[in-house]
C-alpha cells in the first residue's frame, strides 16, 4: 500500500498533539493522519459547558471537561475506525472483478513487486532541468528500449514499433504491466497516479487537468504543468532498484512568513500581475447563490500555497478571487444538500447529473475528453 503526497504529509506530521489552545481557536489534533477536533457547548444558562469530539464525521458523547475529552480521544478514534471497518463487507463472489489484474488478491494500487512478471517493461523518468525536458524511458528484456520526451504513450508506441517485425511472443505486452520505481502497475489509472505522485515528489506542480484526471499524465506534461525550480533533480531510480533505495521526496516548497519579494514556490508572473502574495493554483469550487447579490462557495486545491506559509489549523483570507474556469456545469439535482455537503460529494455525480448544463467549456474538457467515462477526482 502506498500513500499519496498529501496523505504522506499528514501522516508525517506530529500525531495526537493538540493545537489551538488559545481563546477562540479550534482545538485539533491528528489521529492516524486524520483531524479530530473538540467543540465546546452548553445547552442552557444553568448547564455546565460540555466538550464533544468530532472525528471522520462521527461525534462523541458530551464530555465534562476539555481534559476528559483529550483523554477520551484515542479510544474514540479507535472506536470510529473500528466501526468504519465493520461497515465494509467482503466482495460478493459473483461480482465481476473490477480490475482483472494479474494479482487477484491485490487491494492496493500496485501489484507487489514479487508478483511482477519478469518480462514486464520497466519505466523510468529522467528530468533534465537545463533543457526543462522530462524523458519517459522504457526498458524491455535488458536489450531493447524506447524513450520519448513527449509522453509515456509515445514511448510505448515507439517500443511497439521497434518490435513490429518480431515474433509476437517475444515482443513487449502491456498485459504484463509496467514496473516503475520498484512497484508493478497493471492498470493505467494506478500507473498514472504513481506518475503524478512521482512528479509531485520531484517538485512538479501539476495543472488542474492533471490534478483532476491523473490518467492524462500518460499523455505527458501540459503547458500549465510547472517544472521544478530546484537547481537539479537527480534521475529517478531504475525500476529494478529496491523500494528502500528510493531518494527521499523533494520537500514541498512552502514560503515562510514575512518573505519580502517573490514568494518561494509561487509564480512570478502571477505576482507581477496581481501582487506579491497572489497565488495561482488549481482549484475547484461549488457556488450557490444566496439571492441577495451574494454567493457562497466551498472548494479545495491541492496547492499548499494557499496557506501562505501558515502553520496553524486554519487560515482566513480577505481579498480578491480571480476565477479562471476550465469548465463550469450547473445542476439542480443536489438542492437541499447544502453547499458544505457538496464539498464532500463525488464531483463526478455532479458533472454527470441528468439536468446538467454546461455553462462554459473553453478547453473542451467535458465535450471531448471522455470525462463521462473516465473522470477521476482527487
Amino acid at each position, binding site marked *: 500500500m502506498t500513500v499519496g503526497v498529501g496523505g504522506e504529509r499528514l501522516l508525517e506530521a506530529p500525531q495526537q498533539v493538540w493545537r489551538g489552545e488559545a481563546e477562540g481557536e479550534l482545538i485539533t489534533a491528528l489521529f492516524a493522519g486524520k483531524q479530530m477536533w473538540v467543540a465546546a457547548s452548553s445547552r442552557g444558562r444553568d448547564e455546565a459547558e460540555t466538550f464533544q469530539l468530532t472525528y471522520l464525521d462521527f461525534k462523541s458523547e458530551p464530555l465534562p471537561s476539555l481534559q476528559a475529552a483529550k483523554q477520551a480521544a484515542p479510544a474514540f478514534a479507535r472506536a470510529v475506525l473500528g466501526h468504519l471497518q465493520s461497515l465494509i463487507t467482503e466482495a460478493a463472489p459473483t461480482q465481476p472483478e473490477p480490475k*482483472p489484474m494479474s494479482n487477484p488478491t491485490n487491494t492496493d494500487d500496485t501489484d507487489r513487486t514479487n508478483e511482477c512478471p519478469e518480462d514486464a517493461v520497466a519505466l523510468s523518468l529522467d528530468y533534465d532541468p537545463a533543457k526543462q525536458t522530462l524523458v519517459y524511458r522504457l526498458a524491455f528484456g535488458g536489450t531493447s528500449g524506447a524513450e520519448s520526451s*513527449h*509522453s509515456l504513450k509515445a514511448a510505448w*508506441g515507439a517500443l*511497439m514499433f521497434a518490435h513490429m517485425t518480431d515474433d509476437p511472443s517475444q515482443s513487449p505486452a*502491456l498485459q504484463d504491466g509496467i514496473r516503475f520505481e520498484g512497484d508493478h502497475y497493471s492498470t493505467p489509472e494506478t500507473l498514472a497516479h504513481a506518475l503524478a505522485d512521482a512528479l509531485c515528489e520531484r517538485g512538479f506542480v501539476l495543472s488542474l487537468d492533471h490534478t483532476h484526471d491523473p490518467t492524462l499524465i500518460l499523455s505527458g506534461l501540459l503547458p500549465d504543468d510547472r517544472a521544478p525550480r530546484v537547481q537539479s533533480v537527480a534521475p529517478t531510480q531504475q525500476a529494478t532498484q529496491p523500494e528502500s533505495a528510493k531518494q527521499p521526496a523533494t520537500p514541498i516548497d512552502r514560503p515562510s512568513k514575512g518573505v519580502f519579494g517573490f514568494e518561494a514556490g509561487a509564480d512570478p508572473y502571477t505576482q507581477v500581475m496581481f501582487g506579491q502574495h497572489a497565488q495561482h493554483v488549481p482549484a475547484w469550487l461549488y457556488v450557490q447563490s444566496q439571492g441577495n447579490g451574494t454567493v457562497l462557495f466551498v472548494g479545495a486545491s491541492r496547492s499548499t500555497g494557499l496557506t501562505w506559509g501558515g502553520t496553524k489549523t486554519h487560515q482566513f483570507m480577505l481579498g480578491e478571487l480571480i476565477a479562471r474556469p476550465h469548465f463550469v456545469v450547473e445542476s439542480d439535482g443536489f438542492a437541499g444538500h447544502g453547499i458544505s455537503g457538496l464539498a464532500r460529494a463525488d464531483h463526478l455525480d455532479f458533472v454527470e447529473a441528468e439536468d446538467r448544463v454546461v455553462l462554459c467549456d473553453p478547453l473542451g474538457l467535458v465535450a471531448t475528453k471522455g470525462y463521462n467515462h473516465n473522470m477521476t477526482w482527487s
Partner: protein
Amino acid sequence: MSAENQSEGQPEPKHEDAIDLVIEYSDQRQSLLWAVEYAGSLSCWSERSLQEAIGGCALAHMEDDSPYKNDSITEYGINFNGHNYNTRDALGAAVIIYLSDRSYRFSGQTLGEQSLILCGLQDEDQAPAAEPRKQLQAQPAATVQPAFYVA
C-alpha cells in the same frame, strides 16, 4: 505476412484483425490527427504522432480482455489506406506518399529515413499552406470516437 514482400514494395491487402490507421486534418485545431481504430470500435488519437496514438491505444486497453491485444501490431501489422503494412519503413513510405499527395512537403531528413514520419512531422516538414484547409479523409470526423486517452 511477409515483411520481405513489403521491403520489395508490394503491400499486403488489408487485414481484418489489424489496427486501422486514419490520418485526418483538424480544421479546428489546424493540425494532423493520427487516429487508430480496432474492430471499428476502439480508437485513440494523437495530434503529435502515430506512435503516441498506438501507445495510447495500448494503454487504454492495458487491463481489459477485449479482442485487442498489445501484440496486435507485431502479429497483424497496421492497415492504412486500404493496405496492410508490417514494417516501419513500408508504413512510413506509404504515409509520406499519402501526405505528399495532399500537398505536404518533407525535409531531406524525413525522406531519407521515412519511418521517422511515424514519430510525427518534423520541424522542417511543411504542411500545405492553402486556405481553407480541407479534411484529408472523406470519412467524417464523427466516426473517430472520442478517445479515453487523448494526447
